[in-house]
């Protein structure tokens, strides 16, 4: 009833090409931003920030990165935590060795290094695809796991092999409390989402999607697979590298080499499957889902008064993840984002059936 685009005429090219063409969507987005920037910092507790919101924001960034590669370009990767690790360790080393550098510069440099490594491991994608590529990305995963655990230079010769970061100071602003971290991360995420959104609706994103849908046809119409695939790997790894750096500096604070292991890679993959492949909104949904599910599972037994051991919960978590993946692939291959779109479509017609 309220969600109608009747009477909203597009009279300029700018109006035709804007990201949210419907007025109600723009109002909703503005409201959401106000809530996220103003209301949440006032009302949310530290626990909520630390265990839910901060991981959610960072993992969303990583999921967007992976989605650009898997969902938009169709190149599967089951080793993306490797590029998170590259980003985290690159940021750590840059911040350690050039302390006067602004954190934003450190972030971008870490992302660029991750992008370079991502392109390196993306080179096999030029000759192979699909399942074979999965193994190539697994190689990235296990190699970086080993690299950061064994090469002492990366961890600054720490005897335990784990590294810890100093609080971030930027333009004289120390990001130490959960609220500040949240605001900073939210700003970063919004900027990166905007960039991603514009990438995928521009010619680069269209080249990726053409590559995904049918590579031979894409080549025939003049898209060079080398550029399309490697640029997807580079952008994706850049995003994931930045997310990795943020994960290390903002969420973990100090971490050991196995913080970025295969489980994290698979979790990222699950986020985009459950959230929706080839959808930026889906990355948000998926990350929220994966962050919330373990917490819900931990709280639920106590709420219901049924005592379940922690080991049992972790097994249940595995089972629920597994079952959900299969369920989503069968029932809704486009994930939660598709459900959202269906809901919006229904809302447009409501209260009429057609």
């Amino acid at each position, binding site marked *: 009833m309220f969600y109608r685009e009747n009477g909203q005429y597009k009279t300029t090219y700018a109006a035709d090409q804007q990201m949210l063409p419907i007025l109600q969507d723009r109002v909703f987005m503005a409201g959401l931003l106000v809530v996220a920037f103003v209301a949440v910092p006032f009302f949310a507790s530290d626990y909520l920030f630390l265990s839910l919101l901060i991981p959610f924001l960072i993992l969303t960034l990583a999921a967007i990165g992976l989605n650009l590669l898997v969902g938009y370009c*169709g190149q*599967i990767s*089951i080793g993306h935590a490797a590029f998170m690790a590259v980003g985290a360790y690159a940021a750590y080393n840059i911040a350690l060795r050039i302390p006067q550098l602004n954190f934003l510069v450190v972030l971008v440099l870490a992302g660029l290094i991750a992008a370079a490594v991502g392109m390196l491991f993306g*080179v*096999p994608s030029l*000759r*192979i*695809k*699909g*399942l*074979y590529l*999965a*193994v*190539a990305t*697994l*190689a990235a995963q*296990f*190699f970086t*796991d*080993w690299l950061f*655990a*064994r*090469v*002492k230079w990366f961890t600054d010769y720490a005897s335990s*092999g784990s590294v810890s970061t100093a609080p971030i100071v930027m333009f004289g602003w120390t990001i130490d409390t959960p609220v500040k971290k949240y605001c900073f991360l939210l700003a970063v995420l919004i900027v990166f989402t905007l960039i991603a959104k514009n990438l995928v609706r521009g010619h680069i994103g269209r080249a990726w999607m053409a590559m995904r849908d049918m*590579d*031979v046809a894409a*080549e025939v119409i003049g898209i060079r*697979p080398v550029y399309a695939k490697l640029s997807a790997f580079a952008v994706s790894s850049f995003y994931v590298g930045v997310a990795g750096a943020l994960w290390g500096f903002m969420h973990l604070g100090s971490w050991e080499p196995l913080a970025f292991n*295969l489980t994290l890679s*698979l979790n990222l*993959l699950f986020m985009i*499957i459950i959230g929706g492949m080839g959808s930026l909104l889906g990355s948000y949904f998926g990350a929220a889902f994966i962050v919330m599910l373990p917490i819900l599972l931990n709280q639920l037994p106590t709420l219901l008064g049924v005592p379940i051991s922690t*080991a*049992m919960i*972790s*097994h*249940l*978590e*595995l*089972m*629920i*993840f*597994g*079952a*959900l*993946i*299969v369920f989503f*692939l*069968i029932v809704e*291959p486009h994930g939660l984002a598709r459900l959202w779109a269906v809901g919006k479509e229904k809302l447009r017609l409501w209260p009429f059936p057609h």
Partner: protein
Amino acid sequence: MKKNLPTFILGIVLLTGLVAPLATGASAPGFYIEVLLGGLMAGVLYSLVALGFALIFKASGVFNFAQGAMVLFAALAVARLAERMPLWVAMLLATAIMIVLAWLVERLVLRPLVNQEGVALLMATLGVSYFLDGFGQTVWGSDIYKIELGIAKEPVMILDQLFQGGILVNKEDFVATIAAAALVASLMLFFQKTATGRALRAVADDHQAAQSIGIPLNRIWVIVWSVAGIVALVAGVIWGSKLGVQFSLSQVALKALPVVILGGFTSVAGAIVGGLIIGVGEKMAEVFLGPVMVKAFDLAGGGIENWFAYVLALLFLLVRPEGLFGEKHIDRV
């Protein structure tokens, strides 16, 4: 010839790696052969897991990420059941469980996803593998269990008149190798000589043609997944008796992925040869290349066997994407 040159060069490099420790006198021949045998034994186990992958991929085009989880699940089942009953009854029961599992996977996962792309199926098997990991540990428990095959574990000294110090060999390893060889031989017989085996090969060749001459695809898939389940069972029992049955088993089984890459996805022979190459390669790399690298790059310890297999497979993909024995059908783009 020109196209084979990179393969040739890679082969030379691998051979050099194989011979170098001996030729440069970096190790005693006895120790060298021990490492070689150890690598072969590990390779046999990788081959067994890879065999399951190759079977399923051949017949249904599914890249079964859950093979490792199946190995763990089967091993857990045998280990826990054997606490209450004789080992052979436990193995039979576990076999039955694996067949039921195969049927369930076909019914609940594969059938609804029929005609989907390979990548979607891969992710579905990822889901299956998570589910199996959780389910297995819920039902069977998550401690470390032992499978006692009743074979002496103490090493036997052989060839001690030939080399100084002789070669230490585990009797169990020999039994494992023979069991694996017997399994492969019976699989070969099954595929070549029985009507079901012929049907399986027909499905592997061409789904539609097989279906049009009256081969029921669904039943074939159940059979293939059952066979893969049984292969997983054997691999799980052998590995479990060697290392103990524990969660890390399903991670180690991931090594079968580079093995099938190396050998070629669709080839049973490739799975075996690939497994042996990877097994020997990573043991050699760990024992002989590891210390050199630690010294050269000032590392905090070896452990290169964790990634050696994957990087080897990656290099192999670049020079010969279809693997050693695979079909040469990959459209390059």
